[in-house]
């Protein structure tokens, strides 16, 4: 099987090379013979997926059959490992995960090439670009990080999978993340292909947008599954630590989000063509940069793969990609002239522009903070650590500004918005937002309460000393989230009321129909509602509480309104790990409300501990309990947190995913109007509709 895997890997490289070279020749020479050559290139691209699939299958087969003659299988699995985790060994190490990347890339390429009839010439160009990327990854797995390396001596058992990865979410999280990362290669291929061929019109943007949304959706799922895993497994009570590897996934997500917004300006008004094409290029480059950060060992991270010399490959890839992008941009930039201009600062276009400025600024700040330790090493000769507080100070204000734009943007009209319309649309949301702000203060959210005395102006200006950052952010975030939620709900109600008489249904039925009629717009609104909920969940972290103490059977510990009473201690042993658990009765205000079983597992193969966090969750707060370990007297030490509003974070993510799913659905047919319209007006309306069509729709 390893031999077959190796052969498939080499064969897939040959096929990708053929697809690339023959594809270029067929595109340069325009003749019937070259068209046939182009078709062979396309088929080679299709076949490359089958070949890489064979290779991935061979590796999984080796894992399932405990083939420890393979160094990779020996390093990442063992006999006692459950089957699901043996399969996940495919992406748990450097070499396997690169093979997995190559396989997904070939899979995306397969779909793209299979659907070539959407636009044969554009697909041919995109296929060549994608084949170029495939060649890079296949060269990596063939020559630098081959997962089919053979051991000198076959071991009886393997080292096993990292215990932290032995968690159900970890079986899904990396594939989701990789589907997102790799999926962003497709919009890049389309964009570069369209630029090279000077694609007429904006159809490529329509095709690209769907691919981008799918990839963005996967990336979103992957990022939040990772956050949920960190929350449920790592046992420190948080979900995002601004670790370099976490940041690596956030970078393309931020620029991809910027693209998903600004692309609408190109579709509707023919604006920002240069900006959009560079956003796609940057997003793709950031995925490669993410790979570089994760795999080169340049930054220290608990999530990173082992330090290796593979980083040079990624630097070369980034340089070549950038050079190709710059070359074709300079050559064909005349093709990217805007067809319209910004007419008013108070318009939808303007809000998209500021949204892009903020998203890209956040992207730069994350990159800056991630690479700053490397920079200090170059300049001062030693690495410093840049952690959570720095990223929070820099990025949370940007996040709040984005939340404000999320509330304002959708209510602004294209081209220009009148003051009367602003007043009409914003008075209720702004009023409710102000009410939320006052209510929070009334309920005791007062970030200045710690030190309200300032004896001098300089003391006042040194506000970090007297103003709690987390509380201030929470005090701003919740009213802004209220603003966003209200504007969105009012938009649904307003639209529903317009349709209600025509459909002869209730307002909810009308809202459903409305959503189905313009899935992209209303799906986007739903996603924005999810973002508002996520911010509410994040704001809750300002009011975290924690307590830790050794707990013998029968003893109690108090945290907030909860009392934890130790009922029992248990110990278990199986072939994979030894575990210690505590059975805790949870009481609230003296009344029993349930039981929690925090556990710690010591994995035998690696001797590493892993926490199984016990969480009792409701809409108000999470009671988060970990079995921290055993003290000198072998007494279990229990650590408990109260994490307010965390559930809203996960609910928000589900709503974002739902909204994006809705936005991906095709629109329903519009209602036919039965209102008689004068002929002259109808003619003008028809001319007007033509004017309102997306740019390039008629081309």
């Amino acid at each position, binding site marked *: 099987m390893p031999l077959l895997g190796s052969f498939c890997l080499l064969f897939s490289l040959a096929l990708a090379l053929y697809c690339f070279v023959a594809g270029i020749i067929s595109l340069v020479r325009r003749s019937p013979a070259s068209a046939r050559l182009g078709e062979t290139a396309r088929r080679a691209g299709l076949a490359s997926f089958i070949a890489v699939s064979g290779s991935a299958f061979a590796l999984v087969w080796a894992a399932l059959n405990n083939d420890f003659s393979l160094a990779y299988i020996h390093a990442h699995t063992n006999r006692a490992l459950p089957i699901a985790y043996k399969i996940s060994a495919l992406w748990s190490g450097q070499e396997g995960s690169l093979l997995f990347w190559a396989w997904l890339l070939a899979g995306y390429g397969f779909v793209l090439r299979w659907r070539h009839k959407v636009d044969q010439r554009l697909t041919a160009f995109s296929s060549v670009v994608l084949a170029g990327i495939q060649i890079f990854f296949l060269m990596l797995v063939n020559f630098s990080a081959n997962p089919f390396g053979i051991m000198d001596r076959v071991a009886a058992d393997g080292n096993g999978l990292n215990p932290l990865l032995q968690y159900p979410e970890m079986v899904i999280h990396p594939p989701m993340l990789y589907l997102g990362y790799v999926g962003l290669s497709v919009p890049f291929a389309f964009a570069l292909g369209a630029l090279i061929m000077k694609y007429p019109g904006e159809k490529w943007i329509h095709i690209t947008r769907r691919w981008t949304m799918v990839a963005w959706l996967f990336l979103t799922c992957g990022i939040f599954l990772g956050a949920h895993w960190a929350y449920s497994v790592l*046992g*420190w*009570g*948080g979900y995002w630590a601004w670790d370099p590897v976490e940041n690596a996934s956030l970078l393309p997500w931020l620029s991809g989000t910027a693209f998903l917004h600004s692309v609408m300006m190109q579709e*509707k008004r023919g604006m920002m063509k240069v900006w959009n094409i560079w956003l796609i290029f940057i997003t793709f480059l950031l995925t490669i940069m993410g790979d570089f950060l994760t795999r080169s060992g340049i930054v*220290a991270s*608990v999530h990173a793969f082992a330090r290796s010399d593979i980083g040079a490959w990624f630097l070369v890839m980034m340089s070549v990609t950038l050079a190709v992008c710059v070359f074709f941009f300079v050559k064909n930039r005349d093709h990217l002239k805007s067809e319209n*201009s*910004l*007419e008013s600062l108070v318009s939808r276009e*303007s809000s998209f*522009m500021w949204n892009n*400025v903020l998203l890209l*600024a956040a992207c*730069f*700040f994350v990159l*800056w903070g991630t690479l*700053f330790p490397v920079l*200090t090493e170059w*300049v*001062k000769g030693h*690495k*410093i*650590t*840049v*952690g*959570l*507080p*720095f990223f929070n100070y*820099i990025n949370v204000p940007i996040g709040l500004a984005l939340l404000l734009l999320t509330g304002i943007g959708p209510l602004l009209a294209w081209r220009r918005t009148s003051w009367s319309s602003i*007043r009409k649309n914003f008075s209720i949301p702004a009023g409710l937002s*102000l009410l939320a702000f*006052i209510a929070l*203060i009334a309920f005791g959210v*007062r970030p*200045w309460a*710690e*030190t*309200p005395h300032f004896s001098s102006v300089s003391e006042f200006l040194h506000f970090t000393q007297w103003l*709690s950052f987390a509380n201030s952010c929470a005090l701003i975030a919740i009213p802004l989230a209220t603003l966003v939620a209200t504007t969105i709900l009012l938009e649904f109600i307003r*639209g529903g009321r*317009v349709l209600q008489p025509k459909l002869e249904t209730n307002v909810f039925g009308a809202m459903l129909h409305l959503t189905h009629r*313009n899935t992209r*717009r209303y799906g*986007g609104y739903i996603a924005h509602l999810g973002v508002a909920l996520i911010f509410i969940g994040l704001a809750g972290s300002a009011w975290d509480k924690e307590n830790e103490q050794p707990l013998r059977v029968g003893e109690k510990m108090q945290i907030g309104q909860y009392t934890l009473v130790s009922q029992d201690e248990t110990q278990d042993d199986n072939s994979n790990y030894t575990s210690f658990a505590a059975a805790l009765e949870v009481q609230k205000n003296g009344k029993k409300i349930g039981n929690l079983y925090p556990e710690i597992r010591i994995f035998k193969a690696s001797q590493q*501990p892993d926490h199984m966090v016990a969480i009792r969750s409701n809409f108000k707060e999470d009671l988060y309990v*970990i079995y*921290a*370990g055993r*003290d000198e007297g072998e007494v279990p*030490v229990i650590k408990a947190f109260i994490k307010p509003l965390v559930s809203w974070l996960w609910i928000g993510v589900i709503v974002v995913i739902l909204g994006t799913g809705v936005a991906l659905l095709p629109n329903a047919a*519009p209602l036919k109007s039965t209102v008689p319209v004068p002929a*002259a*007006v109808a003619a*003008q*309306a028809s*001319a*007007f*509709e033509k004017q*309102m069509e997306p740019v390039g729709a008629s081309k």
Partner: protein
Amino acid sequence: MRRLQPRLALALTLCFALPLMMRADVDKAHEDKARYERTGGKMQCMCGCNQMLLKCNHVGCPVSPVMIRDLKVQLNAKTGDEEVLDWFRQNYGVTTVILPASHGFELTAWVVPPVVLALAVVLAGLIVVTWRKRMPQMAAAGDVAVDPKLESLRSRARQETEI
């Protein structure tokens, strides 16, 4: 718009006045705890677990209790947070503090983001100004007189077709 201004002013005044009206009394113990959490939250445990000092969650860690004890001593001895952080940088190594210093080369970590943001905003503003200067010419070229009756249709079309 004119009628809106007094209400807006009232709302803003309320926003700023309310916090001052509801000022809480100074609580020294509360202040010390906040300082301990604020400063401790800027350091990581040096045992190799990569966790924040006050969040280090493994029992029997040989490093975090000593660091926490040192933190309490330094907080009592020094008035400024940055002085405390500098003491830890000198005694436990520069990687202890997970926040760049506010002096020397590390200051650039703090300065660059706001400068870049300001430049981005100025650049975006310049682009907008350029666009708006170009706009009258484009509008003059493509201006079509629209029947006033079409206005309602226009707003409806905009409402129903916009993304």
